[in-house]
């Protein structure tokens, strides 16, 4: 082919409909006869529901029905689909409305269905709930201590599960023998994912066929159907169709099955009309999952020469008042097993307490466990460097897993190995881009003038495309299903290609990158490929889009389907060219006789011939159509080094990010522009955790950061122009060589910024500041310094 499509920065196919406003999001959809639901949410973080009086609300003109939890006792509680592997989990999950007790502010207790959302909201104000308010606890560590309020009967001391990984005895011994040991308590604060589009659901029930159609803002429509039918409603999976229309961002928060989706589905049958619920931003902040929220005691041991010998981690992971769909899996498998980072650390032990508190549900948020692990590791490495007065780049180099050591078994990964890496190369490139030696000179000069410049490093690894099913699933890490993906490719009579896949795109540009893979393999124009997804009708089953898995799992399924298509095309081409199959090749969109490129059939000709079926080889079925199911043999392990330069205003504590250099290695890159976009957005969110974002509950479990007036999202004017570079170490795990790029920025950025701020403040004796590093906290640390 003249120019490769795979690897080209072509413009996104999905953008015209998005930027012109033609794309329909959930709340844009209107069905004939549609009614509207509004949900009454608990104002208390921990309370028993003694009684609910709905009579005044029911009497409001235009109200079609008012219901409480007692009206849905025939609907099962939602499932917890990922329990911490190998240990007992004391599971408590939400019901569609809580009938007896609420365990966080914002839990749904009643619903009004009305002719309009306005009427429903008016009626909602008239519902009287008699609560017995109970004492609340919001801090995960305090919740485990004696005397703390008990939230669930089956979870003594509010512990949902205790999980550990690594070598306890070896780590204890190594720490005992270490020449240097540093202890620190680090808090990875709670974050609110805040996708541009909030959640929502529309359900329609058709009595004649006893079937539901459910539109919802989901990153995983097939899984939603599975969980709702098989677990919540106990109906055949075939009785429900789930559609995720255009989804306006998710960041993980739209992976999960939520009570509202099941509630609206149940209401559509009760009311006998389609019912819509669209979440407000206020609801989104209390009732959609949050992320992170770890309190961690870490101990790192090293030799005086900077060789890290041991890492011991004790983490209290806040899971909220009740479990979201995969909550226990995040702070265990996706956190503890990543604590070796990019380094040879011979002894690691991690203990995790999964804890209930009277706060909103906590589950996967962009990076999901890996940012928390990276923060621990990258802070620990910097602490050792600081203690030993070593250069932070040098200590990283000293402890890196060398490129010759791959595949590398970090031992805490329960049998999996890092697939490929060249950590030193990425660090070297980042140092070169930033001009490290020049910066250190500038920093010294600035300090003479009383200015505080700092540089921070984060040499991360992460894990994408989590698999294989046999590793992640119930026998291993506790995930209650598989994690393969599927794709169907059809080359229609006209030569146009339709791909259906189980992945779900909500901003990642799958329609473009999948088309690039198809165009590359079949030699058709990108414009001739359409990618259909996000509707359980007409797409093969898939587990959905999260964990940066759509390229390394979903698109490999597309690639494998294409190989089957090409094989069949070759057989057909050989037949039509009256040649032996061994004598033809598929190249540049044509099947031709080896050595005779002119004696060829184009893919379009072959598609037409296959579809018409006038002349097929004996036994060949018509049409070029094939499906592949792909269960990867391993995860993929992207890596890189991010470097941040800041200046701290010692008078006010304000932090100015002067430069941000990111060198990522995500394996082979399908579309560099899309990867750059993912990296940019990820860095913004990672920086925001370091400096601005943080969900805060008061002691009574009231969310103090309940709106965008209080919760500080990253803004373009607060960020520098990112300097993005890449190295390319193909993944040997899959035939595309891809790793995953959706979360690297979020994973890497947070410790890079924190390390930079602490580097700046070193002359002032400041060793630690909790995130977010607000001007007030920085200023207070300087005062104490």
């Amino acid at each position: 082919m003249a120019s490769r499509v795979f690897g080209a920065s072509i413009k996104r196919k999905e953008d015209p409909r998005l930027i012109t406003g033609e794309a329909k999001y959930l709340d844009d959809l209107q069905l004939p006869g549609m009614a509207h639901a509004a949900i009454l949410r608990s104002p208390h973080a921990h309370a028993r529901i003694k009684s609910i009086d709905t009579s005044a609300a029911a009497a409001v003109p235009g109200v079609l029905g008012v219901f409480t939890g007692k009206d849905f006792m025939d609907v099962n509680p939602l499932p917890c689909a990922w329990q911490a592997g190998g240990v007992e989990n004391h599971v408590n999950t939400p019901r569609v409305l809580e009938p007896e007790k609420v365990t966080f502010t914002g839990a749904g207790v009643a619903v009004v269905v009305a002719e309009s959302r306005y009427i429903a909201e008016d009626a909602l104000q008239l519902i009287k709930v008699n609560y017995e308010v109970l004492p609340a606890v919001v801090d995960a560590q305090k919740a485990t201590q004696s005397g703390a309020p008990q939230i669930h009967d089956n979870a003594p001391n509010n512990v949902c599960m205790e999980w550990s990984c690594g070598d306890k005895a070896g780590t204890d011994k190594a720490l005992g023998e270490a020449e240097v040991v540093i202890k620190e308590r680090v808090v990875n604060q709670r974050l609110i994912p805040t996708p541009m589009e909030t959640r929502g659901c529309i359900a329609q029930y058709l009595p004649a066929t006893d079937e539901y159609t459910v539109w919802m803002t989901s990153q995983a429509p097939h899984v939603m159907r599975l969980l709702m039918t098989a677990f919540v409603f106990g109906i055949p999976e075939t009785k429900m169709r789930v559609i995720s229309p255009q989804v306006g961002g998710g960041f993980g928060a739209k992976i999960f099955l939520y009570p509202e989706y099941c509630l609206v589905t149940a209401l559509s049958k009760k009311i006998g009309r389609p019912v819509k619920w669209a979440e407000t931003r206020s609801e989104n902040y209390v009732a959609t999952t949050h992320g992170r929220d770890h309190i961690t005691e870490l101990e790192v041991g090293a030799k005086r020469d900077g060789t890290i010998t041991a890492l011991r981690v004790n983490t209290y992971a806040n899971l909220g008042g009740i479990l979201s769909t995969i909550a226990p899996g995040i702070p265990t498998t996706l956190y503890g097993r990543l604590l070796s980072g990019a380094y040879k650390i011979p002894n690691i032990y991690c203990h995790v307490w999964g804890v209930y508190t009277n706060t909103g549900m906590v589950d996967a948020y962009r990076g999901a466990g890996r940012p928390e692990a990276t923060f621990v590791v990258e802070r620990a490495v910097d602490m050792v460097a600081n203690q030993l007065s070593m250069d932070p780049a040098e200590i990283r180099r000293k402890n890196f897993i060398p490129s010759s050591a791959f595949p590398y078994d970090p031992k805490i990964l329960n049998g999996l190995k890092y697939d490929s890496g060249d950590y030193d190369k990425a660090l070297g490139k980042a140092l070169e881009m930033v001009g490290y030696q020049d910066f250190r000179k500038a920093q010294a000069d600035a300090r003479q003038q009383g200015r505080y410049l700092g540089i921070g490093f984060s040499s991360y690894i992460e894990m994408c495309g989590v698999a294989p099913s046999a590793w992640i699933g119930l026998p291993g890490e506790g995930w209650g299903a598989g994690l393969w993906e599927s794709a169907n490719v059809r080359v229609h009579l006209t030569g146009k290609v339709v791909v259906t896949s189980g992945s779900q795109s909500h901003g990642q540009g799958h329609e473009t990158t999948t088309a690039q893979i198809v165009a590359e393999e079949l030699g058709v124009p990108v414009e001739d490929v359409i990618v259909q997804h996000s509707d359980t009708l007409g797409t093969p089953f898939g587990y959905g889009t999260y964990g940066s898995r759509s390229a390394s799992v979903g698109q490999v399924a597309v690639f494998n389907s294409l190989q089957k298509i090409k094989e069949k095309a070759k057989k057909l081409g050989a037949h039509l060219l009256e040649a032996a199959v061994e004598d033809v090749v598929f190249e540049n969109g044509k099947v031709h006789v080896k050595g005779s490129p002119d004696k060829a059939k184009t893919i379009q000709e072959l598609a037409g011939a296959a579809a018409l079926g006038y002349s097929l080889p004996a036994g060949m079925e018509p049409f070029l159509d094939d499906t592949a199911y792909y269960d990867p043999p391993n995860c993929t392990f992207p890596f890189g080094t991010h470097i941040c330069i800041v200046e701290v205003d010692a008078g006010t504590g304000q932090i100015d990010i002067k430069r941000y250099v990111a060198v990522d290695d995500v394996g082979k890159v399908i579309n560099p522009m899309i990867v750059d976009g993912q990296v940019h957005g990820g860095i913004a969110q990672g920086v925001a955790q370091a400096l601005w974002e943080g969900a805060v509950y008061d002691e009574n479990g009231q969310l103090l950061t309940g709106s965008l007036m209080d919760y500080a999202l990253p803004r373009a004017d607060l960020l520098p122009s990112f300097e993005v570079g890449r190295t390319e170490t193909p993944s040997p795990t899959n035939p595309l060589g891809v790793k995953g790029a959706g979360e690297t920025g979020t994973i890497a950025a947070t410790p890079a910024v924190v390390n930079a701020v602490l580097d700046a403040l070193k002359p002032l004796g400041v060793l630690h500041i909790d995130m977010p590093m607000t001007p007030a906290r920085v200023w207070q640390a300087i005062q104490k310094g």
Partner: protein
Amino acid sequence: MYPAKFDYYRANSVEEAVKLLAENSDAKLLAGGHSLIPAMKLRLTQPALLIDIGKIDSLKNIKANGSLEIGALATHARVAASADVKKWFPALANAASLIGDQQVRNFGTIGGNIAHADPASDPPTVLIAAGATIHVRGASGTRAIAAEDFFVDLFTTALEPGEVVTKIEIPNLSGRKSAYAKMSHPASRYAIVGVCAVLSMEGDTCKEARLVVGGAVAHATRLSEAEAVLKGKKLDAAALKAAADAAIAQVGDDAMGDITAPADYRRAMVGQYLQRAIQSALG
């Protein structure tokens, strides 16, 4: 985000708005709506009637003629961009440019802003520093209120029920140096601390300083102790430090705190931003 039911009336003149306000006790004026409508969407306020004054063109003018007159319905974007404001009182243009974001500035009005009297809002601080006068009209006629007397407490002004802000008048400040220095809240962009300095200088010596703080306290307030410290002084580093200390002492326990900026921090920042405002005014 779904307001309760309300009636809507568009007033075509100030007289009509005043009359409607007098006739409806549970009515609110709608200008830019950027404080009122969010509060209604959260059902924090549920007025029975909105009187939209947004189309009264006579309240939108900005003109400089002896004094600078800014109509109550001038948007923040227009105040920020106005050549007259930039020339007459650049600190106000700067403060207006720092409000919210572009969409807020395109809709929000200076009159609505001061009538709402958010303690962390920027215009009150600079208007007091300028010695501005707020002109209002009610059922019993018009009156003029000194900006310094207009802001009474959190979300509380000297406006009587039924009164409408019509214009803001800023005296001739020629020869004065002025600047506004602000630390923005990272989410809301409201002032954590905002200080405005208006200085009359004779060479290096300060004849008179008007120094006002907002954001850190319940309502924009003159820092009279710091003003006294600077009067007749050369504005060197020592004088600025002394003024900052006086301002911090005056704010004292009145400093407000929240999860982003605790009271001790805000109090200290009053001193920092006082110095920054003066340095910026002196250029």
